């Protein structure tokens, strides 16, 4: 039973004037960015504004950019209304208001200097509307490469975690395995996975499987070593309790050692996650037929830096969603720890 104590809030359930002002302040920056985009004329001649049609809707980089800003406004207004009825959420929302306002203003300035005036060195630093052009001109290609990265990551990561947990438990359980495998793990572990790229490309039938192999080994190391240490640190008393209850070896492994190692396994998974992102992008940049890393490389060749930025934004979103997802699984699996550790 988790007991959380909440202060009774005096104005619970009422959307008060002050908080409406906070919401307006939050979205004011983005609104300013929209207005700036509409009313400031295109001064520099370096930007060609093309029309793209999607199922009857015609967009150019400016209208698409405004659409994105409008979406942000809608999002933050919705979050604001949702947060208005809870004291803790209101507090959190209010704390972020300044930053969100500033983000809107920063976008407006970036738009001004990057697109309207083109004062930033071109073509290296396009404006925000310029980056959006990548999604307008080749949305299909961006999606295709994103899916390629996602698939590569998912396959590599899942196999890596499974393999890491498996070997980690074996190493942690059998002293013989510990003796023979730990040095291998330690030596293989310090070498960045991409160093194996040349071997991987010759040993595996396709570039995809080669990249999966690289991700698997970079995930394997932290997961296996932390799983092993989690198993080894299980108190003897817990095994003894299980044995007096009639637990045989399989019970000791699966119901005592592994649950005990779970927090450490997740520490390993989180570390592996960061390694895997790096390996993924590097592998893609070094010879994959697709993926966001490949997209960056391909765009760079044509000096299409706005596409590089677009790919970076997609990565940022994708990787933070994956990290969040793993965090959710972790807090579900380790819910017994809540309140036990900070």
């Amino acid at each position, binding site marked *: 039973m988790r007991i959380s104590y909440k202060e009774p809030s005096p104005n619970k359930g009422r959307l008060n004037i002050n908080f409406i002002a906070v919401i307006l302040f939050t979205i004011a920056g983005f609104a300013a960015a929209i207005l700036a985009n509409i009313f400031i004329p295109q001064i520099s001649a370096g930007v060609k504004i093309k029309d793209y049609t999607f199922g009857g809707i015609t967009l150019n980089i400016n209208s698409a950019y405004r659409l994105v800003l409008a979406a942000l406004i809608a999002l933050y207004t919705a979050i604001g209304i949702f947060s208005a009825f809870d004291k803790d959420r209101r507090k959190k929302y209010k704390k972020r208001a300044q930053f969100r306002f500033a983000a809107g203003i920063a976008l407006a300035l970036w738009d001004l200097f990057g697109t309207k005036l083109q004062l930033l060195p071109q073509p290296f630093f396009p404006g925000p509307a310029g980056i959006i052009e990548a999604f307008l001109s080749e949305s299909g290609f961006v999606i295709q490469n994103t899916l390629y990265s996602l698939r590569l990551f998912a396959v590599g990561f899942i196999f890596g975690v499974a393999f890491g947990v498996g070997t980690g438990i074996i190493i942690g359980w059998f002293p013989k395995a510990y003796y023979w495998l730990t040095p291998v793990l330690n030596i293989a572990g310090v070498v960045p996975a991409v160093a194996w790229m040349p071997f991987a490309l010759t040993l595996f039938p396709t570039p995809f499987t080669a990249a999966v192999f690289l991700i698997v080994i970079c995930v394997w190391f932290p997961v296996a070593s932390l799983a092993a240490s989690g198993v080894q640190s299980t108190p003897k008393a817990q095994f003894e309790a*299980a044995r007096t*209850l009639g637990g*045989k070896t399989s019970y000791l492994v699966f119901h005592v050692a592994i649950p005990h190692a779970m927090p450490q396994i997740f520490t390993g998974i989180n570390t592996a996650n960061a390694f895997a992102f790096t390996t993924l992008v590097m592998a893609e940049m070094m010879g994959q037929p697709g993926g966001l890393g490949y997209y960056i490389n391909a765009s760079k060749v044509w000096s299409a830096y706005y596409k590089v930025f677009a790919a970076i934004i997609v990565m940022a979103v994708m990787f933070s969603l994956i990290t969040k997802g793993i965090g959710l699984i972790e807090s579900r699996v380790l819910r017994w720890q809540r309140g036990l550790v900070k």
Partner: protein
Amino acid sequence: MSDVILEIKGINRIYKDEDNTVEALNDINLSVKRGEFISIIGSSGCGKTTLLRLIAGLDKPQSGKLLQSGEEIISPDPSRGYVFQQGGLFQWLTVEQNIAAGLKARRVYKENKHKVAEYIDLIGLNGFEKSYPHQISGGMAQRVAIARALINDPELLLLDEPMGALDSFTRADIQDKLLELKRGNNATMILVTHDVDEAIYLSDRIVIMTPRPGKISEIMEIKLPHPRHRGGVEFLSIRKNILEKFHMASAYPEPEYRI
């Protein structure tokens, strides 16, 4: 005719380090009848836990033998339940799951599911079924540990100071539950305790141990009929008798009726 469930024959257990040797148990002999309630009392470090671990099969003696119904004890077995001195609950399992652990370990959970709720009732932890060990009090955790050991219906239950962390009301409650269980299932119980009253209230025999080396100094038979009255004349005279033995053994008298 009551048969012998446990025979301890000339047990020695010595702990050896590089620089010191502890004779934890020296020539222990004891024979326990089925359905008997035995308490072991003695000062800290006299080998009570060591003896219980040997009976459980968690440890082996250097010499001597332990027999359960004539068969040598070589490894832990669910027929010998053990309540540990320090809880030993699984932190990652809820109260309910901890109690069910024995059933799952023996792969008989499906057909005995209903027993879990019975034991939660028994220890009075209704409403805490879904709590994790760190969310309940020490006394509650100790009760869970008792229920966890009981659910396997052990013919021999080993209890290492299970009630140290309990308040006197809960303690009296659990003491009665143990007696009830002993009568109902004809279970045999061996209890390590520091509480002389508890030992007298529950036991058929009290084993008194002395340290360095850990030895049985005396075995007292308590012939009072149940239910026993803690304030009764005979009860008090037995208590006085036991405490005097301890005062003689130790340098200065203890202020409390605790060892």
